[in-house]
């Protein structure tokens, strides 16, 4: 656990992202597999959804819904698959490797798959794409095997995070309401709610919090970083934090720090873990921290991709998950429950 002491800082520990797959995702995947993909097992671009923590007791998840998959051609759809501006559905790009057999599923080289996704994040950081479209920092990976005879689905998520070596330390981490003055806190809440309520920005998970000397706060896009400098202004790096824990930031901060230190060469970073209560900014639950970064050797070199971690644990262990949906998919079972 990160300590709140000022003893030169302890290692900043991030609460891992948690996955959640809605039943509808597996239904559509099955239908696509039968009607469209066949034995083609090339990777598929998918979309995950997440939102800031909205209840102080539970973290939010990276969620897959049926809309996460491309549309099944057998279904006519006049609506865009993903409606932009839904504040409860911030879109995150992902990739799905769905194998044809259980053996192929287990044989997937998980280390190199993770490395491949980490490389994409690394390149997006270096090319500046991550500044324009920050959701690419949250790129995720899903491997699966859909057993359509037994209606069971084996799957495993990875949320690639670039590893700092040495690790980032934290000198201060406290509720945002204690870090800001009360004028600043009020202004930050108003500005964050404005950002979340605009359909243009509601789905942008990384942002800048700029506080002028008169305590007036504005939320800016990452690309405005240069414009925010000077005039004695405080600038914090904010992100939608899915985590609810009072002493740890959530996973999205990891690659964000990698972007901040590579892009702007900062060694001390103030960050805001933005969290909500019932859909509105809650600075008592949100955290502000000060992270100290030692820029690892080789980080200037695009070719030198840092190590990555992020395979999701299943009840504390590195094992795959499996869900059986025979109850809602097996025609025989459906017939019994309908009789």
């Amino acid at each position, binding site marked *: 656990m990160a300590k709140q002491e000022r003893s030169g800082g302890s290692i900043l520990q991030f609460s*891992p992202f948690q996955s959640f797959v809605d*039943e509808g995702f597996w239904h559509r995947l099955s239908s696509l597999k039968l009607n469209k993909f066949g034995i083609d097992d090339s990777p598929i671009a998918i979309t995950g959804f997440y939102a800031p923590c909205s209840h102080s*007791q539970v973290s939010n998840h990276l969620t897959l819904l049926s809309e996460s998959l491309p549309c099944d051609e057998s279904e006519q759809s006049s609506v865009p698959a993903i409606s932009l501006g839904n504040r409860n559905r911030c879109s995150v790009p992902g990739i799905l490797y769905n194998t044809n057999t259980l053996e192929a599923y287990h044989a997937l080289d998980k280390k190199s798959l993770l490395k491949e996704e980490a490389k994409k994040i690394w390149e997006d950081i270096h090319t500046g794409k991550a500044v324009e479209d920050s959701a690419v920092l949250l790129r995720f990976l899903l491997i699966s095997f859909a057993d359509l005879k037994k209606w069971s689905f084996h799957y495993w998520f990875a949320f690639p995070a670039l590893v700092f070596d040495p690790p980032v330390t934290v000198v201060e981490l406290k509720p945002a309401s204690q870090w800001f003055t009360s004028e600043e806190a009020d202004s930050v809440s108003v500005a964050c709610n404005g950002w979340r309520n605009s359909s243009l920005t509601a789905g942008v998970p990384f942002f800048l919090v700029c506080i002028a000397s008169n305590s007036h706060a504005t939320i800016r896009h990452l690309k405005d970083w240069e414009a925010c400098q000077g005039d004695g202004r405080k600038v914090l790096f904010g992100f939608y934090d899915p985590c609810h824990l009072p002493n740890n930031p959530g996973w999205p901060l990891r690659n964000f720090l990698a972007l901040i230190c590579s892009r702007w060469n900062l060694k001390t970073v103030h960050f805001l873990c933005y969290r909500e209560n*019932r859909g509105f900014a809650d600075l008592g639950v949100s955290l502000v921290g000060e992270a100290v970064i030692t820029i690892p050797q080789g980080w200037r070199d695009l070719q030198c991709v840092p190590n990555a971690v992020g395979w999701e644990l299943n009840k504390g262990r590195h094992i795959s998950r*499996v869900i059986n949906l025979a109850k809602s998919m097996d025609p025989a079972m459906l017939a019994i429950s309908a009789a």
Partner: protein
Amino acid sequence: MVLSQKLHEAFKGTVERITGPRTVSAFKEKGVLSVSEFIIAGDNLVSKCPTWSWESGEPSKRKSYLPPEKQFLITRNVPCLRRAASVEEEYEAAGGEVLLDNEDNDGWLATHGKPKETKGDEDDNVPSMEALEISKKNHIQSISSYFGGEEEEDIPDMADYEGTNNLIETDPATLQSTYLVAHEPDDDNILRTRTYDVSITYDKYYQTPRVWLTGYDESRMLLQPELVLEDVSQDHARKTVTIEDHPHLPGKHASVHPCRHGAVMKKIIDVLMSRGVEPEVDKYLFLFLKFVASVIPTIEYDYTMDFDLGSSSN
């Protein structure tokens, strides 16, 4: 499914197919909603309680009388920290219930009849920061310490493969209490944290909103709908809450049956009007969700707004 229920479903389906949706407002007269009033009330819910959003659901299940992007309302990942049975005594003791219908045994109970008292209840459910700080040390435990030694039945043949990928990721920056349990109100080491996706659909036959519950256990695995009944007030668990196909999502889900929704809403509206409050149709869902809270008292979905129930106007 019981035969009478099946027959009714078939009848209801036929009526829905051959009759048009309600277009004339009968909100005050019958407590029901037209399709356009449902949209107005839903838009207001989404704007005042932003954890709710409109969704379009399965394309094949789309209803033509609703806009494609506004098929139903949903709020996801709502915590439910206690089973309903454990709080029923408290509700009775608090005296915060109003019997809305005593004609027969199926009468609905509306909690929050005295808003001030229930407000106090809600505050108790939201732990302060200090409570969370303490809970970090006491409550967060790995799942394996709860289920020590017990093999998970949903992980059948993985042991053979475990370790073969050499996936042990040693990383000091990953929080190691890898399975984190939410804050729980009691101290007896029994996991109660469930989460719910709560959705509201428009029921064309009854012309009222209808609430659906999809429950998940603490590792966000789907709960069997039968277990969902533990989070339903015992007065309603076997009678008014049924398990049926969701109109927009796959699978069977628990639902509060809407057969008496119109009558209950009519009574709530009558009470308001007798207190001199003119009910507005865009607030229908707030009233509706307040009354649904008596059926599912421990699922902490959001329906709060600055709203005068009329209790102080006389």
